[in-house]
C-alpha cells in the first residue's frame, strides 16, 4: 500500500475561483469587481471572486438571500456557462500534460494532480516549476492558478491551500523543500478541518480529542486514527506524515451509478412534457454509460413536485425498471424510462424535477447474453449507438436523439445572466472592436 516517502512527489494545480476567472478572461470589465456565478436555475452561489468572499458570501449561499447585499455592493451575478468552463479546463489540462508531466489525474474541472517522480532533473527546483506553470497558464489561457507540491496527494492539496492563503508564497508552495521547523509552523496555523478528507463531523470529533491543527493531526498516531475513525483516516494520517497511500488515478474508475436529472425552471404539468425531458435524461445517461464502456441492468426513474412550495399539493414517486438484458442502448433505456414514468405519473401536480439513475452497471463485454435476443442488443444496435454518439459529439448534443425535440422549451434551465459561449459557438465568439 505505501511507498517510501522520498520516492513520490505530487503537484496539485488548482485554478483560483475557476468559474469567475473564466468569465473575466473574456470580460475585462469584471476585473476587480465582486462577481458570483450561480448554479443551475440561478439557485445559489457556486463560485465567488475574492471581492465577494471578502463581503462574507458563503459558498452555496442562495441567491435570493444575497440580492440585497448584491444591490448594495454592485455584485455581478452570472449564470453558469458550463460550455465555456469545460473548454477552458481542457486547455489547462492539455498544457499541463504537454509541458509538465505526462502523469496527470484530472481531479475536478479546476484541479489536477500531477505525478512528479523522476522530473527533478528538469528543473532547478520544483518551486521554479510551479512558477513556470503559473506563468504559462496565466499567459496562454488567462487563468490564475496556485500550485501545491508534496510527497503525497494529501500534502500536495494542503500545500495548495497554503499557497492560496499566504501571499508570500506567490502562488507556489513546495512542502518537500520546506524545513521541518517551517512545516511545523505552517501546519500549526491551519485548522485540521482543512485537510483533504476531514469532514465537518470528523473535525468535531478531533476537536473534542484536542486535535485542532494540521500539526496536531499529523502528530497523532495513525493507528489511533484508525481505531477511532477507520482506515480512511488512518490513511490520511499516514499521508500527512509523508507516506504516500493514494496513487495517481490517471484513468478515472468507472462510475457505479450514472444520474441525469435537473430541476425545471418552471413547473411542468403534462405527461407529454415530462416524457420529453425524461427521454433527454435517459439519452444523456446512456451516452455517459457507453463512454465508460458499460451496460446497466436497471433504470431508476423519479419525479417530484417542489417541496418548498408548501401551498402546492405535493407528490413524489420513483420506480425501478429492470432490463431483460443488460444494455446501453438509448432506445431501450428511453423506452424503459418512459414506461416507468407512465406508471408513476399522476395528473394535477406541478412537477419540479424528473430524472433517471442507471443502476447495477457492469462492463459491456462481460454482460451475459440471453437466448431471446432483445431489441437493443447485438451488433446492429451497437453500430447505431456509435453513430449516434459520433454525430452528437461532432455537431452538438441532441443532434440525433430518441423521442425528444431540440427546440427550446419553457422548462429549460433558467440561466438569465449567462455569458456567451465564447469558445464553443461561432455565433458567440467575443468581439474585437476595430474603431
Amino acid at each position, binding site marked *: 500500500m505505501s511507498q517510501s516517502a522520498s520516492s513520490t512527489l505530487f503537484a496539485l494545480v488548482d485554478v483560483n475561483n475557476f468559474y469567475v476567472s473564466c468569465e473575466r478572461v473574456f470580460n475585462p470589465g469584471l476585473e476587480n469587481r465582486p462577481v458570483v456565478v450561480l448554479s443551475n436555475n440561478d439557485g445559489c452561489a457556486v463560485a465567488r471572486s475574492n471581492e465577494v468572499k471578502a463581503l462574507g458570501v458563503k459558498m452555496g449561499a442562495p441567491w435570493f438571500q444575497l440580492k440585497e447585499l448584491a444591490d448594495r455592493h454592485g455584485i455581478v451575478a452570472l449564470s453558469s456557462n458550463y460550455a465555456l468552463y469545460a473548454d477552458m479546463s481542457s486547455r489547462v489540462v492539455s498544457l499541463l500534460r504537454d509541458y509538465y508531466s*505526462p502523469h496527470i489525474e484530472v481531479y475536478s474541472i479546476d484541479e489536477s494532480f500531477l505525478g512528479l517522480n523522476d522530473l527533478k532533473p528538469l528543473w532547478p527546483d520544483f518551486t521554479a516549476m510551479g512558477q513556470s506553470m503559473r506563468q504559462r497558464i496565466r499567459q496562454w*489561457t488567462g487563468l490564475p492558478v496556485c500550485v501545491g507540491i508534496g510527497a503525497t496527494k494529501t500534502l500536495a492539496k494542503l500545500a495548495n491551500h497554503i499557497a492560496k492563503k499566504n501571499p508570500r508564497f506567490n502562488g507556489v508552495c513546495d512542502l518537500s523543500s520546506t524545513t521541518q521547523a517551517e512545516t511545523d509552523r505552517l501546519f500549526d496555523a491551519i485548522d485540521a478541518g482543512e485537510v483533504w478528507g476531514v469532514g465537518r463531523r470528523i473535525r468535531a470529533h478531533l476537536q473534542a480529542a484536542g486535535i485542532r491543527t494540521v500539526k496536531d493531526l499529523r502528530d497523532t498516531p495513525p493507528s489511533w486514527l484508525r481505531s477511532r475513525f477507520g482506515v480512511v483516516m488512518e490513511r490520511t494520517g499516514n499521508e500527512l506524515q509523508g507516506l504516500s497511500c493514494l496513487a495517481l488515478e490517471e484513468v478515472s474508475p468507472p462510475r457505479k451509478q450514472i444520474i441525469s436529472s435537473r430541476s425545471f425552471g418552471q413547473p411542468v404539468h403534462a405527461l407529454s412534457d415530462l416524457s420529453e425531458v425524461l427521454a433527454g435524461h435517459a439519452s444523456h445517461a446512456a451516452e455517459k454509460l457507453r463512454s465508460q464502456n458499460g451496460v446497466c441492468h436497471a433504470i431508476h426513474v423519479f419525479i417530484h413536485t417542489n417541496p418548498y412550495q408548501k401551498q402546492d399539493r405535493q407528490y413524489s414517486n420513483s420506480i425501478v425498471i429492470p432490463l431483460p438484458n443488460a444494455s446501453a442502448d438509448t432506445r431501450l433505456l428511453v423506452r424503459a424510462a418512459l414506461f416507468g414514468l407512465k406508471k408513476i405519473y399522476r395528473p394535477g401536480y406541478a412537477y419540479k424535477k424528473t430524472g433517471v439513475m442507471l443502476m447495477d452497471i457492469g462492463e459491456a463485454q462481460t454482460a451475459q447474453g440471453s437466448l431471446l435476443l432483445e431489441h437493443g442488443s447485438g451488433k446492429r444496435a451497437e453500430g447505431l449507438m456509435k453513430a449516434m454518439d459520433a454525430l452528437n459529439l461532432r455537431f452538438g448534443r441532441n443532434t440525433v436523439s430518441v423521442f425528444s425535440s431540440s427546440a427550446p422549451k419553457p422548462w429549460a434551465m433558467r440561466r438569465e445572466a449567462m455569458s456567451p459561449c465564447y469558445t464553443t459557438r461561432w455565433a458567440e465568439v467575443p*468581439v*474585437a472592436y*476595430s474603431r
Partner: protein
Amino acid sequence: MATVLSLALRTPPFPAPLRPAATSAPACSLPLLLNRIPAGFPSPADEYAETALDLNTYLIRNTTATFFFRVIGDSMTGASIHDGDLLVVDRSIEPRHGHIVLAVINNEHTVKRLYSLNGVIELHAENPAYAPICFREHDELQVWGVVTGAVSRFAV
C-alpha cells in the same frame, strides 16, 4: 516610460520547456492504403496518398492558447482586416513592434497594430480616418494576445 503590460514580456528565463510527452501525442492519422499488394505492381497512386488539408493546421500554431474573435469596425482595413472577419488570436506569442495585437482599452477588446520603439508605445489603426492611441509615461497597455490571422467569408 510607458510599458506594454503583457505577461509574455515578463516571462522569466525558465529552462527549456519539456518536450510534449509521448503519452499525449495527438492521434497520428496515417493514410490508409487500400490496395492489397500480394504480388505484381503497386497502384501508382499509393505513394501520393496524404491526409486532406485542414485549415486549422494552417491558421493555428498553438491550439491551447488560441482564441477566436469577431471584428466590428473598419479601422484595420489597411491590414486586410474587415468588419465581420474572424480573428485568430494567439496568447502564447510575445507581442512585439509591428505585430497586430488585441489590446484591452476601456474594458473592450480592440484590434490595432502595436508600435513600440525607443520607449514610445502606440496603437496604430490601418485606416487614415483613425488617429493612433498613444500611451504616456506610467500608462499601461494591456495586450490580450497577438493576432496571427483573419478569416473572411463571402456571401454567395
